[in-house]
């Protein structure tokens, strides 16, 4: 098993802590909260697609399942918040299993279409079952999460909670990346034929990964619901699935920091050019184009090259 990249983990910890101490402006904190949420979703998509080669353009649906399970159970049924997170994970895993089983035998564009279609179906259900989901105008009044009597009702408190969750998540990612498991997924991605010949039950592994990724995405969805207190289908549509797909690609598919790097850059970047609304789309698209065309390994590739040339050697 490979050595853990402790430098990256400690760097991450330092950045999060310093940011908490020195920046008391809640706007920048909210940006970092969104970065962390997107980083988790993009990293999970990276494991599903970047590592295992299973393309999915419907992850926003699982993100929505988590958010709406939490929203509906707390607003309409007054459920205990923590319980709703668990229920959301169970539902998302069950749906992922149900959908994954027939879908995962598809490949390439057909798989992309199947997952995209699944995402659209969920999005339409969020819109249509309006007496529960509040329909297009959304669901108001999701209570604040409180852990061990520590109410998370403002940006600072929520920032602490989510950075702990994100840090634990990054550690698990790092452990996964340096274990045999990450090799196994890469073997599947490159050659299902060879993997099958050497004892890998490919369809079972793909299904497990699909369900796990759906579960974590749903968990993040529930947390997003508690954070914003209001959810509407717009946040869980095809655009979000494509956004996290782009984040994982730009960040660097197949490298464990890809999701986080891509999410950081593409969530923070629009904030820098807010004064150029009309041009924002063009600038965003051009930035994307340049990275994909000239840095195929994504930003992680750039760091790795830089890291390899100046630091290691």
């Amino acid at each position, binding site marked *: 098993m490979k050595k853990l990249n402790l430098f990256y983990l400690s760097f991450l910890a330092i950045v999060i802590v310093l940011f908490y101490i020195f920046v008391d402006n809640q706007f920048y904190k909210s940006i970092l909260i969104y970065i962390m949420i997107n980083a988790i979703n993009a990293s999970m998509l990276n494991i599903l697609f970047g590592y295992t080669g299973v393309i999915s353009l419907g992850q926003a649906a699982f993100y929505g399942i988590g958010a709406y399970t939490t929203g509906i159970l707390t607003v309409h049924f007054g459920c205990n918040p923590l319980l709703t997170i668990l229920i959301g994970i169970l539902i998302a895993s069950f749906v992922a299993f149900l959908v994954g089983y027939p879908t995962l035998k598809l490949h390439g564009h057909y798989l992309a279409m199947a997952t995209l279609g699944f995402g659209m179906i969920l999005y339409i259900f969020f819109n249509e079952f309006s007496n529960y989901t509040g329909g*297009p*105008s959304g669901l108001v009044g999701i209570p604040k999460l409180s852990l061990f009597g520590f109410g998370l009702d403002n940006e600072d408190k929520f920032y602490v909670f989510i950075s702990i969750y994100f840090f634990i998540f990054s550690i698990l990612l790092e452990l996964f990346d340096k274990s045999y498991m990450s090799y196994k997924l890469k073997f599947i991605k490159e050659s299902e034929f060879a993997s099958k010949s050497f004892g890998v039950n490919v369809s079972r592994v793909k299904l497990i990964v699909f369900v796990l990724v759906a579960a974590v995405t749903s968990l993040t969805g529930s947390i997003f619901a508690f954070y914003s207190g209001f959810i509407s289908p717009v*946040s869980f549509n095809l655009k979000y699935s494509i956004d996290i797909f782009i984040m994982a690609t730009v960040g660097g598919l197949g490298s464990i920091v890809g999701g986080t790097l891509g999410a950081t850059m593409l969530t923070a970047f629009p904030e820098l050019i807010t*004064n150029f609304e009309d041009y*924002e789309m063009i600038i965003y698209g051009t930035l994307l184009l340049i990275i994909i065309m000239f840095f195929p390994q994504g930003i992680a590739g750039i760091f790795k090259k830089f890291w390899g040339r100046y630091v290691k050697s």
Partner: protein
Amino acid sequence: MVLVFTTVALADIKLGAIFSITGPASYLGLPEKQTLEMLVEELNKKNGINGEKIDLIIYDDKGEDAEARKKFLRLVQNDKVIAVIGPSRTGTSLAIKELAQEMGIPLISVAASKTIVYPVQKYIFKTPQSDEQAVEKIYDYLKKNGKKKIAIITSQDGFGDTGRNALIAEAKNYELEVVADERFKDTDKDMTSQLSKIAAKKPDAVICWGVGPAPAVIAKNYKQLNMNIPLFMSHGVASKKFIELAGAAADGIYLPAGRLVVVDKLPDSDKYKPILMAYKKSFEAKFNSHVSPFGGYAYDAFHLFKMAVEKAGKDKAKIADALQNVKGFVGVTGVFNMSKDDHNGLGKESFMMIRIKNGEWEIAE
């Protein structure tokens, strides 16, 4: 086109605004932004509110909740604004109203749904009429003409959804029977199957609730199926743009609308006429595009803000109280009478029933 008017003088009245300038609801956000910029520019020429110029900061929420939340926090934390105008859509307004209430920032939304200001919260206001008022206007008209069975076809977005709820709720009070309840997506290209389903139910009138290009497609489909049942639309289509799109198919459509669209047909004695004419002239001169009710919502929001600051200075809590006590303000959308339990302040009379006749608006009271 830098939007930050940082004039040298002590520009210390910081006003924030969030509109959907890009994305699916961009036809709402653009006229709102343009109107606000124009009004601030004019006011700053007459050196602002009692000597202090206004520093206007506008952000785009692309019609998404997460963006609206981020931009709101940016306005409050970074730009230290004392009040926020917008957002343009119901969803994005609901996404930030709790935050505004918690942080004590007066928020004057330009989105329609009643749920924004109901239950009433100290800092949360809105200028557009609620759907209930538009629905009441239509139902009054229907009752007067003895219509009993109605069919509704509403869009699958915030505007269409709240409209649908209001249509169904109010129908009970007016003893109107809703015989068909169809939906459409604003990206759909052909609604003839829904309309033929409606035709089969033989309603006395059809009400379409939506904004943007889709209602124009419905108008054309309506003509294609030559359904000669009166067709009513929402105040969402009260703009020249709709007539341009629907073309001949727009003829004969009834809709409730603010006075802005029929300003030149109003009798001179009408108390709204001077304001409307002034706004229409300056807007159309500056941006050579037709004036729209959405811009009107921003117009009223700005004036409410101006009056509140004139009365209460820059203390946010006092501004909120001042806003709550606005009485008899004649705005573009109607007469605003705010109160402790009504942070919209508009009545049914802010609407007029108008009809489209060969490409022009015509008062159909």
